C-alpha cells in the first residue's frame, strides 16, 4: 500500500548569494528557460499526479527540467515550496525522509565506501528492533535476487559500476519500502550494461511489488520501464500517459520530439479545410487528414492555418515514382536491420528509417549518399501541431 499524490507541487530555489551573475547564462544551459521570480528560480511548478499503489511511474525530460527536484521533494530531501504531497492519503510535506517509508537509489550509487557490501545493505536495518538473524536473512535474500551474494564481503571500491548499482538497489530493497525512488540509476553505466540492468529492473519489479518512481532523461528507459510516463520540460509537466499513449498521442510538439528514436521530423505545412474536411498542404502535395483526427480537430475548433507537421522517421518510405517529394541523401547509417538515411529536404535535415534488406534478405544497396530520392508517407502517420503553441491539434 503506497499511493503517492502530488497536488500543485511547486519548488522555488532561492537565489544563492554571490551567484547573481548566473542569470546571464546562455540559453543552452540546463535550466535557462525556467521561470525566474524574485524569490528565486522555479524548478518545478503545477505538478499534479496521482500515483497508484505498486505503479511504476517514470519522470522523463531533458536535463534541468526538474525531475530530480520532484523526486527529492517526494523523498523529503528537498523542501516543498508550495502544494501538498500525500503518501497513502497522509499529508507528508513536513515529514522527515525516514518517516516516509521510502528508499532511494542515487545516480552515483552513494554507497558507504568504508563498508562491505553486506554492511552497506545491513546498515539501515540495524535498529534495536531487528535481530541479527533476521537482518542476515533479509540481506542474503536481496543479494540473491540481485546476484551479488559472492561480493558480500567486498568493499564498493573493488566492484564494477554495474555491481555497485546492484548493491545500491539491494540497499534499497532490503528495507522493503512502500515506495522506491530512483534517480537516473543507470546513467553511469555503459550502453550494454544499461540494457541488461533495464531488463533486470523489469524482473525485479515483478518480484518486489512496491511503488516505483523513476527518474531518467533516457526516453528508451522511460518507454520500457514505465506503466505511466510523466514527460517534463522547464519545470512543467508536458504529458502524463502510458508509453503507448505518449508515443501515439503526444500532447504537443515537444513530447512528440522527445519520445521516439530517432526523433520525429517536423515540417512547415498548411492546414486547409475543404468541404468540411481537413487536408494538409505539404510542399504542394495535398494529404487528407484521417477521419478520426478530422472529427477531433473539428471538435477542437481548429481552423485553416499554417501548422507544424510531424512525421516519424519510420513512417517515411522511399518510392520510385517522381510524383513524390524529392530529397537529397546526406549520411547513410547502416544499423543492421535498419538503415537511417539523413536527408536534406528544403534546407532541413530529416531522417528516414527503412529496412536494410528486402523480402528475400538481399541488401538493398540503392542508398548512396549524394543521390536524390523520393519519399512518401501515409495520411494516418501525420501528427499536426499548432505553429505557435505546439499543441497537438488532433487530441
Amino acid at each position, binding site marked *: 500500500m503506497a499511493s503517492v499524490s502530488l497536488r500543485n507541487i511547486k519548488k522555488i530555489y532561492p537565489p544563492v*548569494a554571490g551567484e547573481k551573475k548566473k542569470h546571464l547564462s546562455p540559453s543552452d544551459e540546463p535550466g535557462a528557460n525556467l521561470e525566474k521570480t524574485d524569490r528565486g528560480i522555479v524548478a518545478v511548478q503545477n505538478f499534479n499526479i496521482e500515483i497508484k499503489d505498486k505503479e511504476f511511474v517514470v519522470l522523463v525530460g531533458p536535463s534541468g527540467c526538474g525531475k530530480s527536484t520532484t523526486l527529492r521533494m517526494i*523523498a*523529503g*530531501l528537498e523542501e516543498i515550496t508550495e502544494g501538498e504531497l500525500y503518501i497513502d492519503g497522509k499529508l507528508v510535506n513536513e515529514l*522527515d*525522509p*525516514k*518517516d516516509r517509508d*521510502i*528508499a*532511494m537509489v*542515487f*545516480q*552515483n550509487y*552513494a*554507497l*558507504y*565506501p*568504508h563498508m562491505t557490501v553486506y554492511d552497506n545493505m545491513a*546498515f*539501515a536495518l540495524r*535498529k534495536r528492533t531487528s535481530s541479527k538473524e533476521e537482518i542476515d536473512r533479509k540481506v542474503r535474500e536481496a543479494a540473491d535476487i540481485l546476484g551479488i551474494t559472492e561480493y558480500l564481503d567486498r568493499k564498493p*571500491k573493488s566492484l564494477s559500476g554495474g555491481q555497485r548499482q546492484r548493491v545500491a538497489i539491494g*540497499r534499497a530493497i532490503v*528495507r522493503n519500502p512502500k515506495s522506491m525512488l530512483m534517480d537516473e540509476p543507470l546513467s553511469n553505466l555503459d550502453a550494454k550494461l544499461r540494457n541488461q540492468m533495464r531488463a533486470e529492473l523489469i524482473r525485479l519489479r515483478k518480484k518486489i511489488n512496491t511503488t516505483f518512481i523513476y527518474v531518467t532523461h533516457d526516453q528508451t528507459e522511460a518507454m520500457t520501464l514505465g506503466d505511466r510516463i510523466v514527460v517534463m520540460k522547464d519545470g512543467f509537466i508536458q504529458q502524463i500517459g502510458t508509453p503507448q499513449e505518449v508515443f501515439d498521442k503526444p500532447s504537443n510538439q515537444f513530447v512528440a520530439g522527445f519520445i521516439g528514436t530517432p526523433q520525429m521530423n517536423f515540417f512547415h505545412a498548411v492546414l486547409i479545410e475543404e468541404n468540411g474536411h481537413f487536408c494538409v498542404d505539404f510542399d504542394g502535395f495535398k494529404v487528407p487528414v484521417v477521419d478520426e483526427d478530422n472529427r477531433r480537430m473539428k471538435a477542437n475548433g481548429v481552423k485553416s492555418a499554417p501548422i507544424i507537421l510531424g512525421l516519424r522517421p519510420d513512417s517515411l518510405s522511399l518510392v520510385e515514382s517522381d510524383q513524390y517529394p524529392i530529397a537529397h541523401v546526406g549520411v547513410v547509417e547502416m544499423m543492421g536491420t535498419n538503415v537511417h538515411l539523413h536527408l536534406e529536404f528544403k534546407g532541413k535535415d530529416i531522417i528516414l528509417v527503412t529496412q536494410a534488406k528486402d523480402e528475400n534478405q538481399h541488401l538493398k544497396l540503392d542508398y548512396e549518399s549524394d543521390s536524390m530520392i523520393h519519399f512518401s508517407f501515409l495520411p494516418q502517420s501525420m501528427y499536426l501541431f499548432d505553429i505557435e503553441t505546439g499543441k497537438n491539434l488532433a487530441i
Partner: protein
Amino acid sequence: MRGVVAMKTGATLKHRQRVKTRKKVFLLLLPILLFAAVFIYYPFVRTVVNSFSLVNAKGIIKGFAGLDNYAYTYGRKDFLPALRHTLTIAAVNVPITLFITISLALLANKKRRLSPVYETMFTLPMSVSMSAACMIFKSMFSPSVGFINYFFGLKLGWYESQETALSAVLILTIWMSIGFDFLLMLSALRAIPDQIIEATRVDGINPFRRIFKVQIPLISPTIFYVLCTNLVLAMMTSAPMIIIMGVSSAASATTTLMSMMYQSGFSSSDYGLAAVLSISAFLLTLGFTILSFVFERKKVHYQ
C-alpha cells in the same frame, strides 16, 4: 614463441623507462635533499654523537663518554617530572584537540549564510604565531589583572601556581592547534559527497550513528593526519614554558623534555644533557607515531 620475445623486450623497455624516471625523481628531489642534509640530517647525527660524547661548554667534543650522559640525565631528579609533563601534555592535548575540532567541524559543516563568519572565527588561532599567542595568554592568565580570572570570576594563580601552571599551558597549546586542525576537519567533512549523507537520511540513520559510523570513518585519514602532527607537536612543546613560565616560581611544574633541553643547551651549555634529552624525546615520539600507524592500519579508511 613470439609472445615470449615480445614480453621480454617489453620488460626491458619498461625497466629502462623506470630507471629514467627514477633519475628524474632524484634530480627533482636534490634541492630538498641538500637542504635536509645540512639542516636536518647533520644536526641529527651530531646530536646522536654528542649524546655519547664528553662535550665542553663551547660545544666541542672532548672525548667518548659511553652511556655517562644517559646515566646522568636519567638520574637527575627533574628528569622524571619533565617526562611526566611531556606525556601529560600529549595525552591531554591530542584527544581534546581532536574532540574539539571534529565537533566544531560537524557544527560548521552545513553551509549557512553565516558560515564564512564561523569558519573565520574558528580558524583564527592559525594566524597567530606561537610566541605572540604566549604573550597574549600570559596577560590573559595574569592572576591579578588577567582577563580570564576576571571573566570567569576566578581567583586562580595560573602560571604562578604549582597546581594550575600545567593547565594554563594545556589551554594555550590546545587553543593553538584548533585553528588549522578545524580547517582540515571541515574540508574533509565537506568532501564527503552529499548523496552519502542523503542516503543516511533516507535510510533513517540517526545523527549519532551517522556521525560515528559514516562521517568519522570517512574523514579518518584526516583524523589520522591531525593525530600524528599533534602528537609530535605536543611532544615538542617548549615555547610556553620558556616564554610564559620562564621566570615564574612555578616553572618546575611545567618543565617538558624540550624545555629542559632548551635550558640545558642554551642557558647552561650542557650539550651532553641536551643531546640525551632530545634523543629521548625523539624516540618517544617515534614510538607513539609507530603506535598510531597500528591504529591507522585498523581504523583508517582511504578512499
